[in-house]
């Protein structure tokens, strides 16, 4: 592919050269190769090359019974794994007509939102690390450690959760969880001030993120960009509000929206989303119903012939599962639509004629996680 590009471009001009922002690079979040055709300092044509971490998750989904796919869901996007869990169990519950108790739905929402906050904290630190500030990532990890401890107490894992099951969740939450979550929410609201002063208001950061990488509304819709990237461009589309699932309609929260679609807007959208997630968690904890956390489900679920689709709002955008059943318990086809794939696809158009540090800033602000692209 690289040699084809070399033949096509005007390689005679001696100022132009190809730079491999290689698979091993501190700034691409995962194993992503971006082949840059450069003219001096300016990037002419960034071409992402994927596939370095393809682990055949969809194939694994099609070669074992549907309940055996659960561990895979967490490993696709390990930074924010619970929405992936949520999407898959909701898909099978919709397909097989399984009822989920109310308490289980509330617990699912609480843990998913906690995971979303953890993912945004990691994104903030990694974005600033790309820009050259070495401390915010450690402050972010300090806060994230509390979330991971809280979630470890009920799910047993810190990163790759396998907590949801068809018909509910594995384990009930206890008072210790509720207490520590409330304490964490209080602590994080005070810590937002630190991020505000150290990062958001910092003139150096603003200069590196304002008016950089502007995604217009039209471009966003054309490429199918979803999630905070879309909301940064001014379109207020959130699956939790527009195609609600689980118990999200019962909570009152806002959908933060940006204006211009530059890196600073996407940053502000994510920071404000963290606050909205905290609001959802508080409301859920206040109105948590009693009851069982798991309904009775047959051990072997037979998937009726026909297809089924379910979309959730992951931390990076719209994540949807598509399943075609054929009467057995092994799906005929399982297709996962990940948000980062579409988010990355606008990079060639966005990155024409920009400086290299700006490209790094754009890729950081789009919050890409390459393992989920390659599945």
């Amino acid at each position: 592919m690289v040699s084809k590009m070399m033949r096509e471009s005007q390689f005679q001009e001696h100022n132009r050269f190809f730079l491999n922002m290689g698979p091993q690079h501190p700034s691409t979040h995962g194993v992503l190769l971006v082949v840059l055709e450069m003219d001096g300092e300016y990037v002419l044509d960034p071409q992402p090359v994927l596939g370095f971490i393809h682990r055949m998750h969809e194939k694994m989904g099609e070669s074992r019974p549907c309940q055996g796919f659960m561990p895979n869901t967490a490993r696709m996007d390990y930074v924010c794994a619970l929405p992936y869990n949520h999407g898959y169990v909701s898909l099978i519950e919709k397909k097989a007509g399984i009822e989920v108790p109310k308490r289980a739905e509330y617990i699912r929402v609480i843990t998913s939102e906690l995971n979303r906050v953890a993912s945004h904290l990691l994104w903030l630190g990694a974005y600033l690390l790309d820009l050259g500030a070495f401390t915010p990532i450690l402050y972010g990890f300090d806060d994230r450690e509390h979330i991971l401890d809280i979630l470890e107490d009920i799910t047993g894992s810190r990163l790759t959760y396998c907590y949801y099951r068809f018909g509910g969740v594995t384990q009930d939450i206890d008072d210790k969880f509720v207490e520590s979550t409330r304490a964490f929410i209080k602590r994080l609201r005070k810590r937002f001030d630190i991020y505000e002063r150290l990062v958001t208001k910092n003139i150096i950061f603003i200069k590196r993120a304002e008016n950089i990488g502007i995604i217009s509304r039209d471009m966003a819709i054309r490429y199918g960009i979803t999630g905070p990237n879309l909301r940064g461009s001014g379109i207020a589309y959130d699956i939790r509000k527009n195609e609600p699932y689980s118990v999200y309609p019962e909570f009152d929260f806002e959908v933060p929206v940006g204006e211009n679609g530059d890196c600073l807007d996407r940053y502000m959208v994510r920071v404000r989303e963290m606050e909205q997630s905290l609001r959802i968690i508080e409301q859920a904890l206040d109105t948590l119903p009693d009851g069982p956390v798991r309904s009775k489900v047959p051990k072997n679920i037979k998937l009726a012939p026909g297809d089924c689709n379910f979309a959730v709002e992951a931390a990076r955008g719209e994540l949807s599962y598509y399943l075609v059943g054929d009467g057995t318990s092994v799906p005929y086809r399982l297709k996962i639509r990940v948000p980062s794939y579409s988010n990355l696809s606008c990079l060639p158009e966005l990155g024409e004629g920009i400086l290299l540090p700006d490209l790094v800033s754009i890729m950081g602000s789009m919050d890409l996680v390459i393992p989920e692209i390659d599945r």
Partner: protein
Amino acid sequence: MELISTLPPESIRMVFAVIIIISFIFLNAIMMGYLERKIAGHVQRRPGPMEVGSHGILQLVVDGVKLVGKELLIPVNVDRTLFRLGPILSFTPVILPLLVIPFSEKLQARDLNLGLLFIVSMTSINVMAMVVAGWGSNNKYSMFGAMRAVAQSIAYEIPILLSMLAVVLMTNTFSLKEIVGAQQNIWFIVLQPLAFIIYIISGVAETNRAPFDLPEAESELTAGFHTEYSGMGFSLFFLGEYTNMFTVASVATVLFLGGWHGPPLPYGQYLGIVWFFLKVYFLLFFMIMIRWTYPRVRFDQLLNFSWKYLVPFSLANILITAVVVKL
């Protein structure tokens, strides 16, 4: 013995001074390296080096031993003379400015009439060292880094000179000893706060420290002009950088913070060095803190900042100083 007694005492003193200063440079690099890692650690709420020696004091010594023991890789197609010359050219001129700095009333290796000018010209040789290293590496990324470093250094030389000129206008002399002497009653930072700020910012930019470290610690483009160096060559660059930082801080102390002036000590003429070092390390602490706080400035914004903000303000400062001195 007879040979030594025939030499003039001045040259023996100079030899001693040079030996002490060179050994001090290595000590300083070790101390500053340790300080940097510990401060970085505590800013990030972690302890920093703790294993080697009590609280990690010997960490830098062990690192130095490791660097010396590494293989000196010389890539195939480089210009061998230039490649080897780069680190030497970076390290040698940093010793010279320390010869003219008055550490205390009686502790100064050589008091030149044009001390300040001498310091500025020696620090400019650093630019040439970067170009030689970048060109000699036969690597387009190193050349990139070197060219960026040249543009940055040239852009920030001017505010340094202009802010130093403000002090010279007030004291009428380039000799560092007399500048310190003129601050007996009041330190110049009170009279020239703007020049101090401009000098510190430009000094940080001259030594390629964050947030102006685009030529060096690029997370975008390998490691800049010292990509191809390993082992001792690399460590010479870093010795040069740390000593440059020390020089910038000590010139700032001499020009603005009153040099070795301070509350009186016994043997004050020699022990003034204690106050001098306190002030210098306070400035170095500040320079290290800003590395770990701010993100990197983009290259064109860096040059913009110098030409559009620092130069006009330092020119205005000189104008006001000249008018006030004349009155």
